[in-house]
């Protein structure tokens, strides 16, 4: 866990990646090429059916691409053993997916056990992680998931995914089922954790405001294709196309003054964005 991160740049590359599900008449992901740098927190945003989750699930091979290549830190993921690949990638989902028959500590210990860590190391790591996600170890380690609130469960889900300090974290709408106030707190903690460890995060959300608050870069998808992939400020200043303009406008009312003209909309967005960015900057120091 203390090994110095060798800067392999880029961390993750997609080369003409396409996914068509059997019996589907269209591509869920359609010829996506992009490159993500080490330490980025990329948010993937789009409507349901945009292909964002499909793209994410191809990275840990829950889905296999129909065509194209995904390269993780210089290695083609299709050449790797999927089981070994997945042990090195953190994964958090909206339904949390904690194992109901295991305590909080046992849930967090799953991947360390798979990697045959000794119990002293695992125990120390569990305490460290619970502290990181701000759950008191003495109080929570021996509880079962059913004894936790939704927000607490997702903190454990996050701790579990971080257990072996993976170089890459995949998060699939992790805060989607959590109330607004708790979600805001969790978003801030995610920013703090990301800033502290500087691993690469891919974060899927359908909430444009969440995408702009968290993302160092935002990947906007629609119809399986990338609409725009840029920093929140760049997107707000120069939306790439009509779809992006509409997406920004849909969030505009709650972020800032919503206008009909795209200029005003992007003004509204950058106001919202700057709040998110400064939150991140504060903790990142």
């Amino acid at each position: 866990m203390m090994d110095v991160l060798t800067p392999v740049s880029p961390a993750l590359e997609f080369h003409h990646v396409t996914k068509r599900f059997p019996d589907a008449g269209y591509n869920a992901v359609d010829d996506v090429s992009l490159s993500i740098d080490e330490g980025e927190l990329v948010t993937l945003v789009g409507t349901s059916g945009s292909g964002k989750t499909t793209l994410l699930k191809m990275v840990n091979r829950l889905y296999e691409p129909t065509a194209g290549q995904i390269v993780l830190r210089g290695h083609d993921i299709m050449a790797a053993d999927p089981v070994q690949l997945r042990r090195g990638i953190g994964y958090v989902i909206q339904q949390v997916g904690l194992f109901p028959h295991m305590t909080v500590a046992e849930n967090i210990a799953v991947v360390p056990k798979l990697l045959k860590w000794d119990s002293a190391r695992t125990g120390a790591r569990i305490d460290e992680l619970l502290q990181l996600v701000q759950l008191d170890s003495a109080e929570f380690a021996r509880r079962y998931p059913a004894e936790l609130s939704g927000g607490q469960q997702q903190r454990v889900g996050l701790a579990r995914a971080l257990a072996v300090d993976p170089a890459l974290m995949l998060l699939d709408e992790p805060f989607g089922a959590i109330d607004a106030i708790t979600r805001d707190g969790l978003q801030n903690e995610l920013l703090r954790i990301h800033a502290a460890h500087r691993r690469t995060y891919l974060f899927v959300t359908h909430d444009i405001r969440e995408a702009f608050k968290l993302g160092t870069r935002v990947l906007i998808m629609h119809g399986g294709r990338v609409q725009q992939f840029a920093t929140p400020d760049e997107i707000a200043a120069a939306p790439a196309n009509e779809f992006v303009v509409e997406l920004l406008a849909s969030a505009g009312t709650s972020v800032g003054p919503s206008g009909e003209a795209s200029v005003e909309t992007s003004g509204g967005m950058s106001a919202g964005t700057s709040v998110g960015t400064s939150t991140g900057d504060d903790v990142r120091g």
Partner: protein
Amino acid sequence: MAEAWQQFMAYGERYPHKLVDALLQHLQIVGITLMVSLALAVVLTLLLMDHRRAAELAVSVLGALYSVPSLAAFALLIPLLGIGMDTAIVVLVIYNQFLLVRNFLAGLDAVDPSTVEAAIAMGMTPLQVLLRVRVPLAFPVIMAGVHLAIISTIGIATIAAVINAGGIGVILFDGLRSHKIAKILWGTALSAGLAITANMLMTRIERLAEKRLHFS
């Protein structure tokens, strides 16, 4: 009634070894049947668990077999396997497959797909997903199937006496044939007593397991 009770007690005092032998033989039939049934059901479950259509077909075939009356099933198998305990065990094992395989598959299927997805995504091998996540979570339903199979086997094994399989049924059917109320009562008491005891034991085991697995 009082007379029947006297005969019942007298028979018990005179032939205790006959009763014990019948009970032990019955337990033997039930024990062997359960071991073979469980092994076969586990194999069938492993083969069927990832093939939904084949699983549905198999369970409906097993259901059809289960609906064949036991006397008819014993009679049908006599030309193939002859009479005796082996034939009885074959029939009992076939009956159990419906109860066991159906429950095993239903239990494994009922595990939340997102929990299974999390297990796969964390880097568990298919065997680890099965043994560490799916089986423990399906355990109550699996045990319910085993429970049913035990009770059902104890009951149907009694009828297997008609094809010379031995067990408690021998006493019961002897009594019916020779109109000996004492034998009828002993046969009934032993087979019902065994079923009730097994039922209580399994209920207790299930409660313990659920407590340990922390399902609320």
